[in-house]
């Protein structure tokens, strides 16, 4: 079989465009000409200044928003809507507060009418995987911010996703917790075998996590460049190679932040 790279890819974007409020006076272009291919099992970080459209691209890949143009494929099939295969994890807590932890984790299964016994066992396994087996019967508001995000990861894992989409999932956490969560996420990524698309504006997160870093330009969001990150895992954030990569990414980003600032000042 002649292998078409697009159908082997976990996610493939060709010339993807997103215009918000298209056809109105408020129309503005969020994404322009996005070309990107993500391999199965790859860890890709989207890095860019705030408002550059990197989260928008994640929502398009999740199928929560339709693209305005271009072609968007997941495992060779056009993305037409959300799918449990592509789980999205949000920045702010998204656990349903009226459900207990295990009910949250198995929420997707309950939508399909899976029996309670099976839901409990799936939830128990997923919670064990994120190290929160003892939180099974707790309520979300009894957990810390970091624990809540781990439950959100467990909920995504319970759907056995092939792609994990993460929208600044650790942005609301303190620095120490964030570091712990990065190690935790790498463990989860390794044994789930899923591709991870991870949005952040923290260069350190890109250095610590990514196989490849996709750097975005400020509005409209375009891919400025894609930087390979071949540092050996487990990574030492203070190695000379990591420092060099950090400096490189910082310089790439600085231009964009400057440009975004200049634009905002021009608007005032």
């Amino acid at each position: 079989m002649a292998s078409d790279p697009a159908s082997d890819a976990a996610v493939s974007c060709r010339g993807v465009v997103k215009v918000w409020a298209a056809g109105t006076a408020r129309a503005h272009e969020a994404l322009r000409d996005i070309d990107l291919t993500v391999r199965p099992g790859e860890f890709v970080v989207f890095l860019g200044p705030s408002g550059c459209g990197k989260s928008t691209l994640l929502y398009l890949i999740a199928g929560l928003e339709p693209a305005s143009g271009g072609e968007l494929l997941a495992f060779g099939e056009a993305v037409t809507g959300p799918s449990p295969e592509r789980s999205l994890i949000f920045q702010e807590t998204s656990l349903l507060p009226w459900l207990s932890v295990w009910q949250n984790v198995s929420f997707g299964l309950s939508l399909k009418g899976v029996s309670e016994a099976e839901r409990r066992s799936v939830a128990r396994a997923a919670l064990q995987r994120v190290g929160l087996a003892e939180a099974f019967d707790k309520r979300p508001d009894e957990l810390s911010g970091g624990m809540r995000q781990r439950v959100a990861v467990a909920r995504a894992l319970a759907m056995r996703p092939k792609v994990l989409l993460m929208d600044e999932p650790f942005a609301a956490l303190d620095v120490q917790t964030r570091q712990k969560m990065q190690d935790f996420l790498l463990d989860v990524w390794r044994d789930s075998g899923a591709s991870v698309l991870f949005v952040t504006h923290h260069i350190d997160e890109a250095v610590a996590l990514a196989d490849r870093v996709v750097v975005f330009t400020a509005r409209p969001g375009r891919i400025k460049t894609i930087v390979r990150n071949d540092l050996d895992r487990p990574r030492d954030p203070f190695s000379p190679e990591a420092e060099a990569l950090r400096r490189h990414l910082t310089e790439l980003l600085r231009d964009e932040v400057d440009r975004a600032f200049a634009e905002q000042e021009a608007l005032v």
Partner: protein
Amino acid sequence: MATFLARAAAVPQDRPRLPLGQRLALPEGLVPLLRRIGWMLVSVGCFAGLWELLWALGIADAKLLPPPHIFLGNLAEQARFFNTAQRWQIGTGMNTGPSPAMAVLITVLASTGRVLAGLALAASLSILVGVAIRYVVLFERLTLPTITLLAPVSPIAWLPVAIFMFGIGNAPAIFMVFIALFFTMVLSTIQQIDGVNRNYINVARTMGATKRQIYARVIVPAILPGLLAVLRLNLFGAWMVVLVAEATGVGYGLGQVIMLARNTFNPSLVFFTITLIGLLGFAFDLLFRLVQRRLLYWLPRDAGSSLGL
């Protein structure tokens, strides 16, 4: 002064002063409750005391503003005017029929029942209509403009309509409570739906939820706390409306007693009934909060003082 200080210093200080609750070994949680009840009694006591004082000084005329000890002092006298309609219906005179306490109770229960029926009807129908408006676009286009137009109309304006449609009895009073709450609660249901955290909905969507599942499993539970808060704010409104409806010839009830007191120039009866209504409203609010807490088990306990005394 010096001797006073010396004596104060001589008091043995070896035992630390524990809070009163711990010294008396009261169960935890009871102390704040007792404290609130205590302050409530002080607050009401000051008000009643001032009134009594004005009466004792001859400033408050007992014929116009009888103080509490007068209008609360003679239940049997006051009770003669309660439950009058039913006595007329069964043909008993002013001084026969149920005992004074029973007569008051029958009247109180009649008004309470009307308020509860109106509240239940308004709450369930307005949630249904509000959700339907957001669920079906055509339904929104057909109904929302009319509902928005009718929402600001004072419930009092509906009173003649209630009587045209339902005559006298329970139905017009229940209708009045319903109409006073329905339109605003539909609008606030819609507002609550629009305010639901997008993440909750997006989570359900990525998990493959259908539109119906999103409404039933995410939106309705998410709007429940806000709706109950709105319902609680409207509780007092419901009581006001039911009194107006009863005062204008629904038959019997607390509103009718007030009107009777007005027509027969009986200030004692007015204040006695006002006291009853105040206590009832208070009890309703308390009960409502307990129900709210039970129903919204996932909200933190300290959100709002728990019993609000």
